[in-house]
């Protein structure tokens, strides 16, 4: 999963339109693949029991909740911290944070889950913390980059006209950084929803359970359908984030 860090302010309208088209196309393609597998493979009792609708429903809700909750946690932590370290007087803290969290991200999510498991024990909460740790960096980094790419002269003019630091932050800097920050949040949401499938490893539930049951019982169609559902879910959230990006982007940029 690639991590978008480039500020998307220079995107052409075409790129922006593609942005809204690509994930739905992939999602629909994958969904068709899932249906095809369902229709054309031998669906026996075991597979049926793995894919029981009420099970899938619960797992779906668990995955979404886990992905969203960890994303909210990340936003609540990373955006304020990003704002704080871009204020005057924190240059060292900023590079320290970006570097250490970079190390955190170079560990696989799998590893993070295991590390937190040995500390916090089993359960969805541990997964939530692990996901949040992993996806903190894109949001933090994009918050920092987004705030720092605001034209210095715009801030100078604002200060010269008598806006207070707080007014400059809320009325000028954040609106001008929102596109880049949202790009980071979008990356985090996709990471979190996608990797929430690993929650089953330590009893956190989610769609990973279906995939795992398929593996254990040697039912390829169940594995595939589970994987398709995880991917489609991630793509749907990618699309929703793209929509948010489009509509929260201030006019005039």
């Amino acid at each position: 999963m690639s991590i978008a860090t480039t500020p998307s302010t220079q995107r052409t309208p075409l790129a922006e339109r593609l942005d809204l088209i690509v994930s739905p196309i992939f999602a629909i393609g994958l969904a068709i693949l899932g249906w095809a597998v369902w229709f054309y493979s031998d669906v026996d009792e075991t597979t049926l029991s793995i894919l029981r609708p009420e099970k899938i429903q619960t797992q779906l809700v668990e995955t979404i909740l886990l992905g969203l909750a960890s994303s909210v946690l990340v936003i609540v932590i990373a955006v304020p911290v990003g704002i704080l370290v871009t204020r005057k007087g924190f240059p060292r803290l900023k590079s320290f944070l970006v570097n250490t969290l970079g190390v955190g991200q170079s560990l696989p999510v799998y590893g993070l889950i295991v590390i937190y498991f040995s500390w916090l024990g089993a359960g969805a909460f541990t997964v939530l913390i692990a996901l949040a740790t992993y996806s903190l960096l894109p949001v933090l980094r994009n918050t920092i980059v987004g705030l720092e790419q605001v034209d210095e002269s715009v801030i100078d003019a604002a200060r010269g006209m008598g806006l207070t630091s707080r007014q400059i932050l809320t009325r000028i800097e954040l609106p001008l950084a929102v596109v880049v920050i949202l790009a980071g949040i979008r990356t985090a949401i996709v990471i979190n929803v996608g990797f929430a499938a690993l929650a089953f490893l330590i009893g956190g539930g989610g769609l990973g359970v279906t995939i795992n049951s398929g593996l254990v019982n040697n039912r390829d169609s169940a594995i595939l359908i589970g994987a398709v559902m995880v991917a489609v879910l991630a793509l749907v959230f990618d699309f929703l984030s793209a929509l948010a990006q489009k509509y929260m982007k201030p006019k005039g940029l």
Partner: protein
Amino acid sequence: MNDVLIRLENITKSYGAGMEPAVNNLDLEVQRGEVLVLVGPSGCGKSTTLRLINRLIEPTSGKIVIDGEDVTTVNPSQLRRKIGYVIQQVGLFPHRTIAENISTVPVLLGWDKKKIAARVDELLELVSMDPDTYRDRYPKELSGGQAQRVGVARALAADPDVLLMDEPFGAIDPITRDRLQNEFLRLQQDVKKTIVFVTHDIDEAIKMGNRIAILREGSQIAQLDTPEAILAHPADEFVESFLGSGAILKGLTLKKVSDTELHQVPILRQPVMREDALKALQDSPDQVGLLLDSNDKPLRWIDEKAINRTSQPIERSGRPVTVDLQPEDTLQDAITVMLQSSAGMACVTDRRGKYLGCTTIESLAKLIMSDN
């Protein structure tokens, strides 16, 4: 007019021990209603000096008094709302419309909406931009010159007494810069603000300033006087070298086309009869006449050769008039236009393009001679 509005007393700004202070013990008085230009080589501390006045930079020591009040102790944000600020990069807020940009300070001051909307339109008119066209546009839709006009309008929004301008026209192409400078001078005649203007361009300083402070390293005043006095009597070698050569030519930027006597050439109107035209030219000492349209707008220079060229109508012979001067343009502009013009003179028109007369080299020479 000896009314001091801004006074810097013993101002020093240093960025740490061991470094030369950017501003060293500066005393400076700005009078109400004047344009004081701070000019000097890069790194002389002129921008720092400007930014000390609205406390974007805090002085290390010294006192700044504006309108009798020591402002070194007041709330800096409150202070800045009463001082207009224009910078070279303009710094318009890209996510806000032109109207929203201009109304920044009035909104901060809590004006009511109607008053703000009226003020925005008034200011757009003032900087020669059509309110209906530009009000709801975004900064990225403006050219550099238009953006700086909005920048000036935004600085004037809450009608501050003081305007600080940091190389406002420095990033604009020469032709537009010239026009903006002229417009700005005209605007200043109306608004009569107290302006501190920073530039590194001595020609701009001479053109814009009522008084000029030539600064050297550490924001030390090398000479502070009217442009005329500085050009005539540079205080020392530093000032002389900074003025560069051609002080008389620079002095031309101090005079306006309206200071010269306009010369009247024969006027032709459509439809032009060949015989009438010929007669008009022969009756006049000039070699050339001017073809005007029905709105008195100059179209073409017509000389005898053009009249005798019978292959095409007179309306299409002769050379087109490409550039007009306006009375408030400087004599330097006039010389440039004259040298480019095929007729050796330049048309002067009013702001609507209506013909007023011509400037000639003779009338210029007369004006320059009368001074010396």
